[in-house]
């Protein structure tokens, strides 16, 4: 039992990885069938795992209510009640008027609003944080400002050179930097895969 609890699972990523990679390189019908099944399994597992965040949320807010944490427990009740209400409505009838109303007017609005709130912070950072203290920062700032004026139609009105330089920056100008990042990410993926199949990478299993 100790083997099942502490060791057996370490071999599974290696086996699954080998099947998927072999299917990519070799056109073997039986291997392809196994790979298809494994990919379907991954999709179903990741779908069911969406609920993990929900459980964590309920635990955290449930704990806040249980401990009557000052200034927080009342809001945690709001979170839990909102969650339970909308979940029940959606599970009973996802096309129902009440669930649809909550989805369209509450969720959609709040999702867009929360995402957009970072627009304020980037404005204050413009004055407070973006300082060209050295040549590197100056280069970043100048490139950024040129692209800002390229993206905005007013840039061309101010100076006809902005779109010319900006289009170059948005094309070949930024290409070496991002190409290198992409190459590094690609090599990193292969190295990570090697570490996983040799058993040196176990962080995703959590504490053992």
């Amino acid at each position: 039992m100790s083997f099942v609890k502490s060791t057996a699972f370490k071999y599974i990523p290696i086996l699954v990885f080998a099947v998927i990679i072999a299917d990519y390189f070799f056109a073997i019908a039986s291997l392809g069938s196994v790979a298809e099944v494994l990919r379907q399994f991954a999709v179903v597992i990741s779908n069911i795992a969406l609920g993990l965040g929900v459980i964590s949320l309920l635990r955290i807010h449930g704990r806040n209510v249980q401990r009557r944490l000052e200034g927080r427990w009342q809001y945690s009740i709001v979170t839990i009640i909102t969650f339970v209400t909308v979940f029940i409505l959606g599970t009973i009838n996802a096309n129902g008027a009440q669930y649809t109303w909550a989805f369209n007017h509450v969720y959609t609005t709040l999702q867009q609003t929360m995402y957009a709130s970072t627009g304020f912070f980037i404005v204050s950072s413009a004055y407070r944080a973006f300082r060209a203290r050295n040549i590197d920062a100056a280069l970043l700032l100048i490139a950024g400002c040129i692209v800002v004026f390229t993206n905005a139609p007013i840039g061309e009105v101010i100076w006809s050179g902005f779109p010319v330089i900006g289009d170059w920056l948005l094309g070949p100008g930024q290409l070496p930097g991002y190409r290198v990042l992409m190459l590094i990410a690609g090599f990193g993926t292969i190295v990570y895969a090697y570490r996983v199949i040799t058993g040196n990478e176990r962080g995703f299993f959590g504490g053992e």
Partner: protein
Amino acid sequence: MANQTIFDRLDKLDRRIYYWLIVIVIAWPLVSPIGLPITVKPSSRALYDGLTAVQEGDVVLIDIFMSVSTWPECMGGLVVETNTLIDRGARLVYLGNSVDVSRSWERLNELVPRLGTLEYGTDVVFLGYYTGADAAASQMAVDMSSIFPADHFGTPIDDLPLMSDANSASDYAMVLFTAEGEVKWIQQWGEPYGVPVAGMGIAMKGSALAPYLASGDIFGLAVGVRGAAELEKLAGMPAAATTTMDAISSTHLLFVILIVPANLPIIYNKIKGGS
């Protein structure tokens, strides 16, 4: 205190003043539009040219990855893509990797009423939400029905005539991504099966997608609300994205105006030989 320069005083200015300033600067051109001209970038033109080259009956897969939060950036471009493909007589398959994709689908139908005139199941299908990212895309390339045994509305995939013609990557003329998630289509459909890939990325992804555009892994790219406005101009249907560009102009101008005085003391000190 007596030695404080104007820049020091501006530095200590309550940030709420900046926030209210940005609200005013956004609202003003929305209420009173200016209508500055927009020039079209080659990558947006390449995307549009790809759309207009689609033949009647071609099946196009459209990934509405965008969450409702990226509607201002990408919905305009998706509307143009949909309208153009309908004009070309293409058959459309929509799906999405965001939990609120159904809301985006509803919004698309509000903005493109012609979608409702197409015969559902034959000319257009909405498959709905999927998880699994790359694994799902890889499996869809082989067998769509294994990831979508039914569409978003619960109709079995076998009952949808379009899906019997479009069950694997080789059946598709093109994949269009929206907002994000493009990498899986490039890696799992574009490269192994040669399916042309293009789309609209959020502005932040514009830089990350540039290498794919340069290497030919994607044939076209419209970036952010600017890209959407360019597509609207090419299609001759100015709409929400074009309207937003005036607000983009004013906010971007304010942004640069705020950066310049912040850096003047540094430049001044460097000229004077200080640190």
